[in-house]
């Protein structure tokens, strides 16, 4: 079925509604799992569907459907639903005007993962069995493979047309290491844009497992306040959770006071800090050149040199807050409407070396990676591997349950950012917001020293 042709053939009378658009998504995902070297899951997941939007008299009406032959009918039906719903509207704010355009950004024709055989994908995983089997005292070994190829086609009533594709794959090994009765759960993951990116990773897997064994004897931290050096993965989660979500403009809707609190130009952090969101970078899991409403991505500074510099918008929030769209209206798949979401969120590099950051700490924590994180009034990070810092040097491994803090305090307590820069991409999971999880995103940046965080 030619989906572009299908969209071109849609013919809707001008007076049907104030705005409409259609997004067709064709996706193939693959998931392979080995538990203790036994193949326990192997599935290919094709889907094809469309999400239809109508804006009329100050409300949005949506429909998700797998019936691609009746897209016109879907729009007319939503418009009819709008007319049947009585409501008092003082002023209907039409969606932010789009500039008519036609874009086709197809980058993965030669490397499409749905064209790679299942046998090749299984061989890619099985190549690591020998590496993992060389370790004793390893249990609960789960080796997972995940990939996705997606192509989207879009048309709006404002004559915006686009097509773009997205291709990603990953391998993850999770395990429990044992030392007598002591144990530690850990994992290591890899990301690629083509299947070949997942080859020749034995050395990295070996290093990761060796480090995990250091943590079986790690003691729990004495709860309290400590300075923390966060590695790129932790920094990325901090940037995403602590500040990124607060930069999503939908939380400001209807809240006049929030507009003042989050006024552009306000100082919110140390001047060494700059946080960016951008979907431009092709090699990342947050790559999104055009959002699901037809707006091109851009490099948006959320914080630049410690100053609040921007926020993320969908078409709807742009119009209500009278600010330009940023290309952040994203949906998890064809079953959902676009809402304000991040893409690649990161802290820009600073001037210091990693050693400089560590040397500034007499007694503190080096947080290397994470299990999960979240951000509300207080942000929290549950780290996986942490080390004590003693007298300016990395010391013994330590078990930390949660690192937390108040967002603005933490932003002001940032004392330095490293020159090293690393983005964390993943083909497993992603960002969750309300009912839409997981959406592929990426995060990372420099390594960062925060002078005080609550550690427990």
């Amino acid at each position, binding site marked *: 079925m030619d989906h572009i042709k299908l969209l071109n053939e849609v013919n809707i009378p001008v007076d049907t509604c104030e705005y409409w658009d259609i997004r067709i998504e064709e996706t193939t995902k693959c998931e392979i799992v080995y538990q203790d070297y036994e193949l*326990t899951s*192997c*599935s290919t997941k094709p889907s094809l569907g469309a999400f239809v939007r109508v804006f009329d008299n100050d409300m949005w009406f949506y429909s998700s459907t797998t019936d691609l032959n009746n897209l016109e009918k879907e729009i007319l039906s939503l418009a009819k639903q709008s007319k049947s719903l009585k409501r008092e509207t003082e002023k209907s704010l039409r969606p932010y005007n789009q500039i008519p355009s036609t874009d086709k950004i197809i980058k993965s024709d030669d490397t499409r993962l749905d064209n790679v055989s299942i046998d090749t994908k299984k061989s890619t995983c099985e190549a690591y069995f020998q590496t993992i089997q060389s370790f004793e005292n390893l249990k609960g070994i789960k080796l997972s493979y995940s990939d996705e190829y997606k192509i989207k086609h879009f048309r709006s009533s404002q004559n915006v047309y686009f097509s773009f594709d997205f291709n990603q794959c990953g391998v993850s090994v999770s395990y429990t290491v044992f030392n007598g009765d002591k144990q530690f759960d850990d994992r290591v993951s890899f990301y690629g844009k083509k299947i070949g990116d997942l080859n020749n990773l034995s050395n990295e897997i070996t290093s990761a497992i060796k480090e995990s064994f250091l943590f079986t004897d790690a003691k729990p931290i004495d709860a309290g306040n400590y300075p923390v050096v966060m590695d790129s993965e932790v920094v990325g989660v901090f940037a995403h959770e602590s500040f990124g979500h*607060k930069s999503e403009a939908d939380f400001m*809707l209807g809240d006049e006071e929030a507009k003042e609190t989050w006024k552009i130009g306000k100082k919110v952090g140390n001047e060494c800090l700059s946080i960016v969101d951008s979907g431009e970078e092709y090699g990342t899991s947050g790559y999104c050149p055009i959002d699901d409403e037809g707006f091109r991505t851009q490099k948006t500074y959320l914080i630049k040199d410690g100053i609040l510099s921007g926020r993320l918008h969908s078409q709807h929030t742009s119009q209500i807050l009278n600010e330009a769209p940023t290309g952040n209206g994203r949906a998890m798949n064809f079953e959902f409407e676009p809402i304000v979401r991040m893409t690649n969120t990161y802290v820009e590099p600073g001037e210091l070396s990693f050693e400089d950051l560590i040397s500034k700490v007499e007694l503190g924590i080096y947080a290397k990676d994470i299990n999960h994180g979240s951000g*509300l009034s*207080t942000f929290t990070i*549950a780290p996986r591997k942490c080390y004590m810092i003693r007298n300016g040097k990395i010391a013994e491994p330590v078990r930390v349950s949660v690192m937390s803090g108040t967002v603005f305090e933490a932003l002001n307590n940032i004392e330095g950012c490293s020159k090293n820069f690393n983005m964390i991409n993943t083909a497993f999971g992603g960002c969750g917001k*309300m*009912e839409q999880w997981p959406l592929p995103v990426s995060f990372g940046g420099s390594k960062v020293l925060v002078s005080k965080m609550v550690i427990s």
Partner: protein
Amino acid sequence: MRKEILQLNEKETSIEAAGNKIASIRNKNITKSSARFFSVDKIYSASFVGEIDEKSLLDNAINNKESALEYKYSLNSLASVSKETFLEGKNIEDLLPEYQNALTEISSKFPDFIFSGKANIKRVSKKLKFLEEADLKNSYDACEWYFLYKHKSSPSIIDGFFGSGDIGTFDIKTEVSNYSKFLEAFSNEVTLEAGKYPVIFVDSSHLFSKILESSKADNYNKEIGLFRNKLNEKILNEDFTLLDVSYDTSIGATALFDADGRQRSNPKLPIIKNGTFNSLVTDSRNAQKYSLEPTGNTLRSFDSSSVLGFNTITVEAGQRTVEQILSNLPKCLIIEMAAGGDFTDLGDYSTPVQNGFLMENGKITGKLPQITLTSSVEKMFGSELVEIASKPFSGISKCPAIISNMDVLIN
């Protein structure tokens, strides 16, 4: 040879509130299907989103040889079953006016707050058809709704939330009315000293993760998990019984049959019984592997392979109501939002609290300051367990309220 067709249809209407008004309505009517073909020793499968005939789907599965999985377990016996739990006394169309009225009422009563949220009603139809063997059908109306609120002076995205999820019914008005007293108390932040306090989590489901991890048959037999080698031992408080419930629509449990079509004779499986580690949970594969009885815990979405998982987890109810218990407690912390907490491998627990309330002798006296709670699995469900109530604290969770003493750090 077994031939199986799974068909899942969800017809859904979803209403979104943003900035104190209804912002959008979404309609969805999508059918998702899969087929599995069991040969002597292999499972062949295929899935599809949209309409597809059974024969094409089965042919896709049989031809999908690269993805075949070996299996060694005996196929279970099957019995046809059919249940319907639809709305009684209300219609699907009633959701929009009821949610809209609640939004209008609460936003005018509490003008210092911004309300957003979602109400969602779906008619779920799940059919598991084993060709020439049995037809298993389960259909129900599921309604979930919530309001998020944010005080206008707050720097947070969200300050709190309330709502409910029910099968075959919804009652937004009563739940909103019950929650009003918390919004009234919100602006009064109390002072609290560090120390030990009785605590209720409005939703306690995440607190069971370490126990559940230990109860998976594969973990247990690999000696992984906090309670490894402790089966049949007393590990927690006498009053603590943790249940995996497959089917009881009053608590949102809708697994009338598991992914292999297995139906439990008793839907309640006690994982912990009166403090004793009573049972492991198994799917078909692990039951065979470790010579255990299958417990009806084979889970599978329409497009994935089957895995060992859990149904609806709850605790056995106590005797007294939450109100009776709280009226005798000089202070008790009600924890509404505690995102980001976690357990260490040793079972120690810590979480920051984003929103909570102080109740003194059963009355709400104010909002909690920013605190961190610490405890451990063995303390909160063992030595520091105060009591389990006869009912949940609110509509957010269907699990009876658990009151445990926890250590409070002031942030």
